[in-house]
């Protein structure tokens, strides 16, 4: 469901900075349906990959073989991301807060962490430079606290300031795709707000997975369930071994 919803957010011909797992599935689903000319860029330097198998890591050799271009990582970050060529970036994280800030660094204090997470990778600069980002994360009170313990990837109003005041080129997280609903950026408040519910999900279900008083858009939309074609592609073609499709 999350993969199908994420796929619908991508437009044909767009340049997408993509990670492994659900984002990769979503991109491949979009390519197999409405966006055949989506250009996938991996931080490892593979551009326009058409992997013949589901890549298990961001540097999988299947992303290289048959791709349009392989370049060094300096080019990826300078000439593509910082250059403003990336239209969509996918982000995920252990914590996403009220303002769309993401933490992939530490739970607890930095010097004495309760849980040491992997850190930024390329997420910090994707959050800053991609023209828009899509956050993909499952709801839960620990995953969606009011404030993240550490801002790895800045959201809509980092440190209480507008992105453009901080000279961030990209628009930031326009949508948060969860397992129960779609949250959206609210331009006026800089908060992420409830925009659309998955079939069978109620507002209290979503609120239960969020650590602050969630604002709801007036006139909540209903997210269409995956079509049979989407389900067939995901289950039979794109992830037959269910490496990333857990539901």
């Amino acid at each position, binding site marked *: 469901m999350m993969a199908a919803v994420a796929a619908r957010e991508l437009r044909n011909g767009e340049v997408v900075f993509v990670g*492994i797992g659900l984002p990769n599935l979503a991109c491949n689903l979009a390519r197999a349906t409405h966006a055949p000319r989506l250009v996938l860029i991996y*931080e*490892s*330097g*593979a551009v326009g990959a058409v992997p013949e198998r589901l890549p*298990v*890591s*961001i*540097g*999988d*050799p299947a992303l*290289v*073989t048959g791709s349009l271009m*392989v*370049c*060094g*990582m*300096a080019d990826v*970050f*300078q000439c593509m*991301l*910082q250059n403003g060529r990336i239209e969509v970036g996918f982000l995920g994280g252990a914590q996403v807060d009220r303002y769309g800030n993401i933490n992939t*660094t530490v739970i607890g204090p*930095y010097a004495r*962490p*309760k*849980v*040491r*997470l*992997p*850190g*930024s*990778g*390329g*997420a*910090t*600069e994707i959050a*800053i*430079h991609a023209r828009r980002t899509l956050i993909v994360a499952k709801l839960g009170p620990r995953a969606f606290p009011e404030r993240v313990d*550490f*801002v*790895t*990837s*800045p959201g809509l109003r*980092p*440190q209480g*300031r507008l*992105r453009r005041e*901080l*000279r*961030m*080129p990209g628009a930031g997280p326009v949508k948060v795709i969860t397992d129960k609903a779609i949250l959206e950026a609210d331009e006026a408040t800089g908060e992420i707000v409830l925009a659309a519910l998955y079939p069978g999900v109620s507002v209290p279900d979503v609120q239960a997975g969020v650590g602050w008083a969630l604002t709801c858009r007036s006139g909540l939309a209903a997210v269409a369930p995956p079509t049979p074609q989407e389900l067939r592609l995901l289950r039979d073609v794109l992830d037959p071994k269910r490496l990333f499709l857990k539901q």
Partner: protein
Amino acid sequence: MSDHASKVMPMRDAIARFVHDGDTVVIEGFTHLICFAAGHEIIRQRRRDLTLARLTPDLIYDQMIGAGCARKLVFSWAGNPGVGSLHAFRRAVEAPGTAPLEIEEYSHFGMVARFSAGAARLPFWPLRDYMGTDLPRVNPRIKTVTCPYTGEDLATVPALNPDVTIVHAQRADADGNTQIWGLLGVQREAAFASARVIVVVEELVDEQAIRSDPNRTVIPGMIVDAVVVEPWGAHPSYAQGYYDRDNDFYVAWEDISRSPDRLTRYLDEFVYGVPDRAAYLKKQPHVTRLKAKERVCAGVNYGY
């Protein structure tokens, strides 16, 4: 510039000569071409107090941390790619015991920029990054500079100039002219940034093989100190055109690294318990299933 004929040497000699206690050591390669063979030899020779730098510490630095080689880790993403955590690293950071591990943390772009500055022998590199994040708060080495044209503040990172960089590659000649294809990561920058360079290759080729396709050369021999021939030296990572990633081992590392005892037993059996890479490979009979299929591209014409 050392004498040409003497550059080709066994891994044991290369590590003994060029990697010293207290060095800043870089084994680069983004998922692709990670030189486990060199990391294991460093563990075997019991190097201590190393500053290990790398974008993604990966399993090899987790092993080196677990073996007690590291004093400090400089990195941008410390996970087991596609699997989960690096538990030796996590233990050292979450519950620092008798051997604390200092960490210095950037994003990927920051690490790439540090190597770029090092390769260009500039003291810093400017980048548009880190505004609105907590990274500069915990890493005071991330600073800013004011653009002399626009007046805007840009982030900076300091150059990273390792004492030694180790690069695994598909092939090189005896002088160290090195060709890589597939993912290139930051190997070129890391090598140029380094005081000493060890190149480890799947195949040693004649100089003429290099000269037949000079656009493939990523590292010129003039910056290389040692050439080590070590087929399968990147296992369990991979070498495009030679062998695939041993994903089963990456998955297995989750459990091995979670237990200090199991980690010690792993090192005892596969690192301390073998004299060299050839002996390690004898303990990996299943690797042949990872051998790459043929997908040879056409050549191009260099004539005039």
